[in-house]
């Protein structure tokens, strides 16, 4: 089991076993390189833990615990976990500022706790097998010990083809569940209980933060500095990703402001000028005086490593965007770095996505549904959509007017996206569709917290985004999995729970002023960044999708042809072979390919690959990557 997790922990392994329990650990050493091996125990060896991640406030926690009489035998952050448990019992996770997947065994009470960090940065799965419970950071760690051959969880695939990820706690593997973000799973006396220790809770009119924009921006600035300062704690060098946008530039600027010497930044570029941001990356790198390295991702590179990407994600993906992130983490590793700070989370926490603007405009429009002018605001949102440039106002109105008659419905903000994404499900085979239990949207709505309806519509949209796309896809398939593919740890100051809690108490007008996104964040970062970075039009991170496999008239790699053949599609039974063949013909004819076609193609290809890798256990050769590094020093 542990060997399967080697990329997550290449620096050593450790084991503990006793009656009724076995703990194993693969280590990526970052803090206390010599003495931090796991498992780790308390003073009298009655509490044991293995964990993946970081407890950033371990210095302060240790000081407090030592004052309370606890004795430590290492200098690692891991050790605070067992003492915190001894001191605070099941409330211990709330004391920690960090990103973690923890297994803790209490020999006295013979109970196992599985705990995951608040936003869901680190993955953690478990499976109940007769009278045993298996757990691991990735499903591939469970597979060797599972008594039954795993199968595809149809309901989870249905959710993924609606929300981009399964709805927690489901996984793509039948019989395998995840520990949900901010959750503790308690295994005791043959019972398994789930307990939530934190929630994305939002303020309402009664308890929004008060104060001037200036004072709130100052408070946020201090908070972000501290979140960044804590995330620089390591016994190895810490670098940073630099996308060229506001969020990662802001984090790199905060690092420089904290006096971190010789910051190394890393970025990725694309051949397609519509996706490439290297010019902005170099400019901000020069401004912040960082040592900068970038790697160019070519279309063929994505196709070459795609099977390996699916092996890491353990789930189908609807875009290729994770693949370049694996190429980027490989660049980091080639420079002998294993920790990077990134700007991930800012768009969810401070309201940066176009989806939030779209929802705001649709709310505004819903108040006067007959208005011809109100929906025209949508044209400001998607300047890269040719439809807007060509006019097509009647169509714009129809596409985004979905659900307009129910502006208070819980899913209002996300309905157009879910409907568009959900169209990919038309490619599912009739047998699979017939076996699906219920509508994924209804299923998600049923899990929303009671207070959801009392929140401002903007905050409801943020909640849905954090719970579906961010936790399930961005932090997982596109985040942790692509970082850990090359044994690199990502750290995310914007996802410090104090930052989230502060942002969740802000009135939405501080997040979006008219249609100016991340308003307060821009104010907070203005003193650290050039004005052009603050004012720059937000460019969503995208990578070539179908074009990565069929670009420039080239034939796709053999595995694409093989996975999408009628024979393979019949064998797995997941998709309708006739529809897939029509889609392939459309691609080969080079007809204009829209969002839906791109997502459908990737859903089918990645699910077929998933089946080959995890069900059939086949090796798919990894193609050659032709990427070239460009390292520059501006210091």
């Amino acid at each position, binding site marked *: 089991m542990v060997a399967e997790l080697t990329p997550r922990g290449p620096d050593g392994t450790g084991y503990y076993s006793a009656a009724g329990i076995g703990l194993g650990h693969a280590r990526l050493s970052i803090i206390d390189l010599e003495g931090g091996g796991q498992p780790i125990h308390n003073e009298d060896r009655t509490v044991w833990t293995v964990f993946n991640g970081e407890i950033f406030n371990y210095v302060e926690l240790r000081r407090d615990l030592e004052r309370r009489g606890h004795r430590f035998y290492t200098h690692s952050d891991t050790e605070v976990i067992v003492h915190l448990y001894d001191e605070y019992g099941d409330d211990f996770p709330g004391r920690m500022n960090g990103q973690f997947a923890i297994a803790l065994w209490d020999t006295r009470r013979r109970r196992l706790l599985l705990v995951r960090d608040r936003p869901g940065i680190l993955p953690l799965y478990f499976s109940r097998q007769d009278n045993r419970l298996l757990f691991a950071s990735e499903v591939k760690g469970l597979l060797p010990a599972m008594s039954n051959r795993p199968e595809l969880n149809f309901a989870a695939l249905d959710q993924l083809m609606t929300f981009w990820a399964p709805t927690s706690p489901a996984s793509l593997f039948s019989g395998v569940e995840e520990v949900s973000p901010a959750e503790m799973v308690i295994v005791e006396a043959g019972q398994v209980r789930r307990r939530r220790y934190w929630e994305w809770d939002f303020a309402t009119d009664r308890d929004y933060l008060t104060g001037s924009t200036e004072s709130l921006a100052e408070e946020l600035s201090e908070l972000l500095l501290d979140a960044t300062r804590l995330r620089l704690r390591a016994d190895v060098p810490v670098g940073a990703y630099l996308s060229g946008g506001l969020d990662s530039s802001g984090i790199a600027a905060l690092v420089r402001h904290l006096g971190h010497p010789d910051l190394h930044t890393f970025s990725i570029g694309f051949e397609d000028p519509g996706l490439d941001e290297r010019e902005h990356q170099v400019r901000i790198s020069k401004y912040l005086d960082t040592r900068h390295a970038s790697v160019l991702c070519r279309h063929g590179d994505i196709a070459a490593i795609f099977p390996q990407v699916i092996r890491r994600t353990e789930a189908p993906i609807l875009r290729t965007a994770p693949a370049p992130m694996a190429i980027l983490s490989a660049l980091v590793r080639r420079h002998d770095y294993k920790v990077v700070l990134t700007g991930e989370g800012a768009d969810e926490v401070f309201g940066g996505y176009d989806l939030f603007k779209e929802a705001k405009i649709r709310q505004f429009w819903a108040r006067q549904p007959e208005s011809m002018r109100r929906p025209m605001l949508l044209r400001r949102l998607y300047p890269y959509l040719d*439809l807007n440039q060509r006019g097509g*106002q009647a*169509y*714009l109105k129809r596409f985004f007017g979905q659900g307009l008659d129910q502006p208070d419905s819980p899913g209002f903000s996300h309905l157009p996206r879910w409907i568009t994404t959900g*169209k990919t499900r038309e490619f599912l085979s009739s047998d699979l569709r017939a076996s699906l239990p219920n509508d994924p949207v209804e299923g998600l709505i049923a899990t929303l917290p009671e207070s959801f309806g009392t929140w401002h519509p903007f905050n409801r949209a943020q909640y849905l985004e954090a719970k579906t796309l961010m936790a399930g896809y961005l932090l997982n398939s596109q985040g942790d999995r692509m970082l850990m593919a090359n044994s690199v740890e990502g750290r995310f100051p914007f996802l410090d729970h104090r930052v989230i809690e502060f942002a969740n108490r802000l009135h939405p007008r501080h997040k979006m002023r008219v249609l100016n996104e991340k308003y307060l964040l821009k104010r907070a970062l203005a003193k650290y960044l050039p004005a052009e970075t603050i004012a720059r039009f937000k460019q969503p991170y995208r990578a070539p999708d179908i074009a990565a496999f069929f670009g420039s008239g080239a034939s796709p790699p053999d595995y694409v042809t093989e996975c999408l053949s009628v024979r393979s599609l019949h064998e797995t039974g997941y998709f309708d072979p006739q529809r897939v063949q029509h889609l392939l013909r*459309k691609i080969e004819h080079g007809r*204009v390919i*829209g*969002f839906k076609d791109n997502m459908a193609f990737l859903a089918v290809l990645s699910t077929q690959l998933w089946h080959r890798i995890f069900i059939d256990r086949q090796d798919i050769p990894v193609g050659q990557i032709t990427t070239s590094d460009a390292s520059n020093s501006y210091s």
Partner: protein
Amino acid sequence: MPTVDRLRRYVLESFLFTTDESALDNDDSFLDKGIIDSTGILELVTFLEQEFGIQIADEELLPENLDSIDRLVNFIHRKQS
């Protein structure tokens, strides 16, 4: 091939990914049935311009012209005459 058949084949194969003729009636609304999305309309317009040698102006991008097989047939005949 008659215009109506060319259009039907295109919509069936490119948007419904099938050759099953029963999947599409000539008066089915592309919008109401979710057959065409925001990028699909561009595909459709590109196809019409290339296949039938017509130019479609922005102000003609209306469901009244483009939202079913029947409407498309009428629109193309008007443009060609």
